[in-house]
């Protein structure tokens, strides 16, 4: 099985994405995660969400509890809003880095097939996976699609591993990560 490493560019895209993810998390740590205000905000959110879970559990349903429930919910909403505001600063810098790196990758791999897809993508995916490529071989993969896959899987897992992922109670992470999650 002699392989000619025809698609070594794919490795280049993945390693650049990995380095970018590390850089973005380092910036976020420098600007936000190590500050005491962020840490205290994070603790109050965790405390509030645990209290909320306890109050919401079926075992203690009473009038006085529902008042307490409302109070805890509002305090959770406030801390969550403060958390997003606090992240806004580092989010701007990180967004700048992502745009610069994307521009760099675009200039390096414009019109180049960086990888081969082991499946025929649906038209919706083709717009991204075949962007800037010639011909109609839909299994050719452009840098944009690979970079998209890298940035979602690598950054999300890196944030989770480093403990920078937003708290569940705040993000209410649905099937897709919240847009603002992409910013930090």
């Amino acid at each position, binding site marked *: 099985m002699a392989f000619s490493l025809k698609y070594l560019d794919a490795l280049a895209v993945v390693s650049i994405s990995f380095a970018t993810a590390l850089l973005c998390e380092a910036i976020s740590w420098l600007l936000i995660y190590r500050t005491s205000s962020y840490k205290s905000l994070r603790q109050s959110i965790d405390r509030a969400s645990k209290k909320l879970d306890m109050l919401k559990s079926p075992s203690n349903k009473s009038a006085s509890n529902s008042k307490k429930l409302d109070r805890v919910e509002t305090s959770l909403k406030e801390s969550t809003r403060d958390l997003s505001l606090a992240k806004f600063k580092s989010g701007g810098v990180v967004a700048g880095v992502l745009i610069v790196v994307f521009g760099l990758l675009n200039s390096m791999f414009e019109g180049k097939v960086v990888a081969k897809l082991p499946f025929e993508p649906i038209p919706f995916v083709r717009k991204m996976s075949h962007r800037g490529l010639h011909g109609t071989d839909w299994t050719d993969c452009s840098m944009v699609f690979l970079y998209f896959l890298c940035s979602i899987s690598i950054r999300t897992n890196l944030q*989770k591993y480093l403990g920078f992922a937003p708290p569940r109670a705040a993000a209410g992470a649905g*099937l897709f990560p919240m847009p603002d999650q992409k910013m930090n």
Partner: protein
Amino acid sequence: MKKPRSNKAPAKQAQQQPNGTSDSKLAKFLDPNSSWDKDKLLDTLYWIRQAIGLFCGLLWGAIPLVGAIWIVLFVAISTGTVYWVYSQRLNIDEEEFGGHGAILQEGFFASFTLFLLCWILVYSLVHF
């Protein structure tokens, strides 16, 4: 599909267990009666899902398996395994953790993109 939950009573006893018992993380993970708090359970299932995504991506790419049908198979394997882990293996009452939907979508999109990335990467590098 309401199964009698045997998890409630033992979970209470598990808490009174003296902390001295040095049950390692793995033993705790495999012990169906150990008590789980929401974040710990969802984090564990999150990392299980990422491991499945990584493993399937590398395997599909190495063989290679070609065709969109294998994406469907991956989603089935990944979701089935997570379901088996929390409902059969850990005896978790899903109501306490936000229902099947909340548990099953934990880390799904990250593992799906990780799977695609590994599949494409290995397929491109090894077979061309």
